[in-house]
């Protein structure tokens, strides 16, 4: 736990209309960490995750990425997002593009790579996620698990410093959960910094270096997984775990 601080969240608040979803979240995410976020539905965990790359604009507090306050006015959000990958529950592959173009679009259009170089990199990534034969397919032809692996490859193509996962297996059929979690496990082993909102307690326990429990818009408990699951202190966390485990 001695990597540099990649993401720092200070007193983060978010309201939708009069409804306060996040009520002051404080935490730090260091390089190489795998942070799992769990909590009951509607507790604000997805909103928290989406605030980290400003898909949601916080209504209070601040987020610092690599030491720079990205919630400050005038910050180029697009530049920040290039370094923060995101994987969605619903995959959100670009329906109008082939798998290869899904992966190369951002690096090419942002001028980070030439088309050929990006194409080669896309094939490397497709090898890595085990789907090289799908390069010329369209998203609609793939299964949910395949789509999510492609979504991860698309995210990796930007060489992000940290990756956010928003319930990456919740929209999958049970038999496909394993392939996606397996890939995430490999990423974690390779040292990728990951923040994962999940309902997969097994994944949180085995892969995460730290687990956060969010309820009613605040972090109620955060700890290493052994302690978190073995000896939960917070009353609501105990109730939550007794229901899901």
């Amino acid at each position: 736990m001695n990597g540099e601080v990649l993401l720092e969240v200070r007193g983060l608040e978010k309201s939708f209309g009069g409804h306060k979803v996040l009520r002051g979240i404080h935490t730090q995410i260091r390089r190489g960490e795998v942070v799992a976020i769990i909590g009951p539905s509607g507790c604000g965990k997805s909103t928290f995750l989406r605030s980290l790359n400003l898909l949601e604009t916080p209504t209070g507090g601040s987020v610092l990425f690599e030491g720079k306050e990205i919630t400050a006015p005038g910050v180029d959000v697009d530049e920040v997002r290039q370094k923060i990958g995101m994987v969605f529950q619903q995959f959100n592959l670009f329906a109008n593009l082939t798998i290869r173009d899904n992966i190369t679009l951002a690096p090419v259009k942002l001028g980070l790579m030439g088309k050929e170089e990006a194409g080669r990199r896309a094939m490397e990534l497709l090898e890595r996620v085990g789907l090289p034969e799908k390069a010329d397919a369209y998203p609609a032809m793939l299964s949910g698990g395949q789509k999510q692996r492609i979504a991860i490859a698309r995210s990796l193509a930007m060489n992000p410093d940290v990756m956010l996962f928003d319930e990456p297996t919740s929209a999958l059929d049970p038999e496909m959960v394993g392939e996606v979690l397996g890939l995430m496990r490999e990423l974690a082993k390779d040292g990728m910094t990951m923040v994962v909102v999940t309902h997969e307690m097994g994944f949180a326990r085995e892969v995460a270096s730290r687990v956060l429990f969010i309820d009613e818009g605040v972090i109620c408990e955060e700890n290493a997984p052994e302690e978190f699951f073995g000896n939960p202190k917070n009353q609501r966390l105990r109730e939550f775990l007794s229901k899901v485990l």
Partner: protein
Amino acid sequence: MQKIIDEFSLNFIEDDRYRYILEGLGNTVLISFLAALVGIALGFLVAIIRSNHDKTGHMKAANAVCRVYLTVVRGTPTMVQLLIIYYVVFASVNVSKVFAAVAAFGLNSGAYVAEIVRSGIMSVDEGQFEAGRSLGLNYRKTMRYIVMPQAFKNVLPALGNEFIVLLKETSISGYIGLTDLTHGGDIIRGITFSAFMPLILVALIYLLMVTVLSYGVNRLERRLRANER
């Protein structure tokens, strides 16, 4: 049989009367084509402004102008718009009737194209937009490479329909004394006092053009859809 041949000869052959049809057809095609271009350009512009405003809250003034435009165009008859453009807006400038018609039908079509395209943009799943933004693509690039191609595909049938309506609607051009296909046929009727042949021919020509247009739209639609299955 002889009677039909005589009728045909009277209406189209004598004094080269077919020329009215040809001239009218030329004008109808020209006006429809140019007005469609104006309509597409204007429609996409308005749709982009409107959806940008809806998504980001920017461009308040431009959005207000667009809304007035949409309300006025959709709330008044096309024929009144055509008459106003020709007799009021261009009253003191000497412009050709074709130009006035293109302006009127283009302005008119733009409003309908705008709402069609806007509905197309809204029909694209928000997740597509978020995925683009999460990779670091800005609003404009995300719209251009991800949202608009899908929106266009979704609204292609409705757009095709709009251009069919536009083509048929140009038949009111006669009201500003312009010889379009309809007016051309009607001139023949006025000369020969024979209504059947010229009007039926005019109708057949419209039908043929609309059929070809629908066929083209269908093919384009199928080609764009092919890559999704």
